[in-house]
């Protein structure tokens, strides 16, 4: 079956012959390597994308579900050559070590700040609960977004 959807604003098509995940199609067919493949169990959030504006684990979503929808990956959160305020906040605080979890955190945080420009610390932690980082201990990540929450985002 051939599916078509918009990936970061561009029409794309992919061939899915079995119940492939959206993550498989993004990485293996569409060259969008920003979404990471770590657990494929819904536990780590490194594969987080927005599917029609909804934060999901692309490893557990069927590619066929993307048919006709809009998928935003980390590559699409800001215009080419620019950074999203969420990415700038992470840069400023140094909230990145190995970087493997970073795309997932960026997408989850973009989703949070879209809905709620001034989240409390508790709301930040709740919104990022589905993303695991093995390096930073989360301190800097939470701090980056607390800082951002205190500023005007848009």
């Amino acid at each position, binding site marked *: 079956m051939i599916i078509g959807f918009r990936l970061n604003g561009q029409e794309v098509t992919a061939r899915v012959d079995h*119940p492939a995940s959206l993550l498989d199609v993004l990485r293996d067919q569409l060259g969008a390597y920003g979404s990471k493949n770590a657990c*494929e169990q819904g536990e780590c959030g490194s594969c987080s994308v927005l599917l029609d504006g909804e934060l*999901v*684990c692309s490893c557990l979503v069927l590619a066929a579900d993307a048919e006709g929808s809009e998928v935003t990956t980390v590559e699409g959160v800001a215009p080419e050559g620019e950074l999203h305020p969420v990415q700038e906040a992470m840069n400023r605080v140094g909230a990145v070590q190995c970087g493997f979890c970073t795309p997932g955190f960026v997408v*989850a945080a973009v989703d949070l700040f879209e809905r709620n420009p001034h989240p409390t610390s508790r709301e930040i932690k*709740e*919104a990022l609960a*589905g993303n695991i980082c093995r390096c930073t201990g989360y301190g800097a990540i939470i701090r980056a977004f607390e800082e951002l929450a205190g500023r005007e985002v848009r």
Partner: protein
Amino acid sequence: MIRPATLREAVAARGEYRAGGTDLLARRRLGLHDGEVVDLTHIPGLAGIERQEDGAVRIGALTRIADVASHPLVAGAYPALANTAGSLATPQIRAVGTIGGNLLQRNRCPYYRHPAFSCFKSGGDGCPARHGDHSHGVIFDLGPCVSPHPSSIGAALLTYEAGVEVAGRGRLSVADLFGDGTDGRHDHRLGPGDVLVAVYLPPPLEGERAAYRRVTSRALAEWPTVEAVCRLALDEENRISVARVAVGGVAPIPLRRPEVEDALVGVSASDRTAIERAARRATEGADPLPQTSHKVPLLEALVADVVESAAAGDAHTEAGRAERGLPTKSGRL
């Protein structure tokens, strides 16, 4: 993959049903399932929440967990269900996983989920966990499988005495959906062709209050070690007139605790000592495994906590929810 357009086609199709797919796809990745997938998401009418003429609330089986958590009909009249739904898993999983899939998800035992092991649940004979690592296991040893039932929503629905509708089979109580825990091979009692259509919540009692609590090893997103749901009605003198208590993480099925319910009736909602005494009956009949005795005091304390929380009615206020670490509305949980 088969994509039936009607319930009738879905009932006739052979393969494993897929709702949100968060459990099914995870198991396929582990090599536990490579058969046909029957996708239920293109059948109209299976998602949505509405009040029925008789005052009951119907939740379509394919309603997403996030919607169960935030829908005003659920959050208002069935707050323990809303809190349970909003507290489980992660935002990403709640956005995709469904109430039906939550009830019918397969076991989380690490042996079952490891392709190198075979056990009752994966079609073999024997339980490697019983003689191996079962620190996640049950304290009510009701059958050959010692892994706790995974469904948090199952426990909540037991306290609401909910029913489920299965295509071609009519209504079943949630208790009947899970059975008595003696069957080590299955996680529920539906078979091929049984499509779960909806969950029905009876009309709430006058002035009833409820709460949900879980013990986890990590603040958020972690599977509960034990969990408990309580629903109460109080009389004019603030005494408990109706009590419903169910627990999870401790038995091969979500487990109702009638011993606690009976002991609570007549107790003053502010009498902590009496509530704690009643809560200790939550472990009556428990038979912990060598590595699960820690769950006995945990469960007793948690049940006391959830009853006090329900009695205080604080699961119903935003401040009370934030205080107890339950999701608040602003978190869109």
